[in-house]
């Protein structure tokens, strides 16, 4: 798997939109990794004059917000939170979705019926409202937000995985695994799952993007974790100043748009790279 993963990465680099996406994401990762070194005192320091416009004070190249906090520091720390929330929420929903989809698709019958009705039920709830409700009831903390996003986004993965399992479980190689006496768990995770990784990987990049947006939206509505600085938090604090200092909302908005765009570009590129039919046509 490691060698094939390596070659996928290489082909991704050769793909134009994959390359652009990866570059942007690399930048965001760099921002979040270096935030602690460049701004050791954190994003909350009231260091400058409030409402400094970008380019006015060289110490604050992107200006300061209404409380005099450095915009650059906020953006760097925000990158950290947005990425972490996106990745963690995507991971949790991947795990739940894959488990549900694999079990439903492999065993079929009543188990499939029960799990899929549950999935249907989850999908009928408007996901953002559900996230608001969960955060509203349990209270806003980073882990609650992650769980809330994961809970509303796993059904998509579950459907995807189930469809693949339904198809693959009829293949003769799965039958032959049963005939050689292999256990169900080993067939599910060792034999079938590796064959449906491609769509899971593709949709997980979209999943991360959705999670980042959901977190930002929650923060914008004041439902973000008050103890961390995310891009949503910056948006939220910049909102009252929209008319006098629009740059306060523009910077985090641009950061969000670019990141989400990059993730979607990577998703598209992955789709091209991992799609076996296209691959065959090229070779």
């Amino acid at each position: 798997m490691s060698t094939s993963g390596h070659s996928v990465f290489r082909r991704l680099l050769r793909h134009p939109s994959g390359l652009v996406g990866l570059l942007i994401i690399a930048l965001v990762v760099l921002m979040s990794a270096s935030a602690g070194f460049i701004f050791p005192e954190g994003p909350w320091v009231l260091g400058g004059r409030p409402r400094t416009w970008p380019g006015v004070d060289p110490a604050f190249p992107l200006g300061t917000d209404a409380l005099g906090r450095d915009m650059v520091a906020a953006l760097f720390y925000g990158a950290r939170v947005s990425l972490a929330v996106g990745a963690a929420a995507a991971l949790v929903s991947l795990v739940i979705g894959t488990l549900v989809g694999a079990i439903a698709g492999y065993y079929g019958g009543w188990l499939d019926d029960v799990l899929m009705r549950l999935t249907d039920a989850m999908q009928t709830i408007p996901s953002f409202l559900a996230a608001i409700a969960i955060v509203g009831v349990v209270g806003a903390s980073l882990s609650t937000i992650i769980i809330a996003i994961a809970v509303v986004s796993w059904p998509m993965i579950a459907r995807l995985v189930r469809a693949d399992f339904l198809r693959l479980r009829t293949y003769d190689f799965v039958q032959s695994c049963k005939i050689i006496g292999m256990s169900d768990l080993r067939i599910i995770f060792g034999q079938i799952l590796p064959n449906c990784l491609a769509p899971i990987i593709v949709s997980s990049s979209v999943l991360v993007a959705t999670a980042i947006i959901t977190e930002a939206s929650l923060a914008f509505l004041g439902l973000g974790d008050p103890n961390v600085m995310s891009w949503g938090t910056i948006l939220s604090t910049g909102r009252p100043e929209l008319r006098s200092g629009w740059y306060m909302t523009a910077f985090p908005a641009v950061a969000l748009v670019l990141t989400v765009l990059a993730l979607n570009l990577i998703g598209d590129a992955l789709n091209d790279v991992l799609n076996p039919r296209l691959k065959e046509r090229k070779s």
Partner: protein
Amino acid sequence: MTQVLRTEDLRLYHNTARGQLRAVDGVSLSIARGETLGLVGESGCGKSSLAKCVVGLDAPTSGTLEVAGVTPGKSRAMRIARAQAVQMVFQDPSGALNPRLSVARIIEEPLRVHGTGTAAERRAQVAELAQKVGLSDYHLPRFPHELSGGQRQRVSIARALALNPALLVCDEAVSALDVSVQAQVLNLFISLQKELDLTYLFISHDLSVVRYVSHRIAVMYLGRIVEIGPAEEVFHRHLHPYTRALVAAIPGDEALGEEAALLEGDVPSPVNPPSGCAFRTRCPHTRERCAADVPHLRDLGNGLQVACHFAEEFIRPEDMPQAAG
């Protein structure tokens, strides 16, 4: 002679929306060690369902089934025991191999599941198996999509042989292959049988192929065996009208194409099979009795058994048992 496979009144019914589907409807047969039993019939006749029962993919509704002394069961020990008694080779050589695993890994998989030997021992065993089926070291690190259809089928056979089973079920194992490759694989099956004293249940819709590899042939129609006996007896005497139609349908004989009575229509649905003799709706010799009584297999000499009320009428003088014997 030891019986490697023995079934008695084996039945497999499925419940469908339209009613009970009788996929296998009372099959009794046995195969001796080192023997090949060919099973022919058209799609929907139940030959693949019978195969699924034998290898344990489906649990029979009733009847007895014994493979190399093992009777089916649900426990892990039973599953492992059966896997060592019977293995299967499938029709589609590309669907039968996991596209994500290398050839070496695919062949090794059964050994890993059964915890055979150390990693090094298993590797040696894989190399030996590959060589046995005519693959070289070159093929071992490859992936299925890098191989030709014939080579993939060899990988399938190597995997099936890994556990040293007594019985190999070949379900249309050469049907998807081109003629020239088909011959290679058929020859391989025959030489493996001699070398390893293997027993085959060889399933195909192709009567010529079945006749070539089999010692005995069983003809199935709508879940039942309608004729069974030594291969040449079945092929030449074909006392059941259905067997006769199958022989006549082998393309190639101009005269048959022009004159021979071909069967009308299609195989009826196994959900609502005709009463009495299931073949009567397509049989050119149907009489009243056929609708009333179910014909059972009867001995007609030289080991040939036929399930037809009027089989004696179809005996041609030149094929009389004494003449043939």
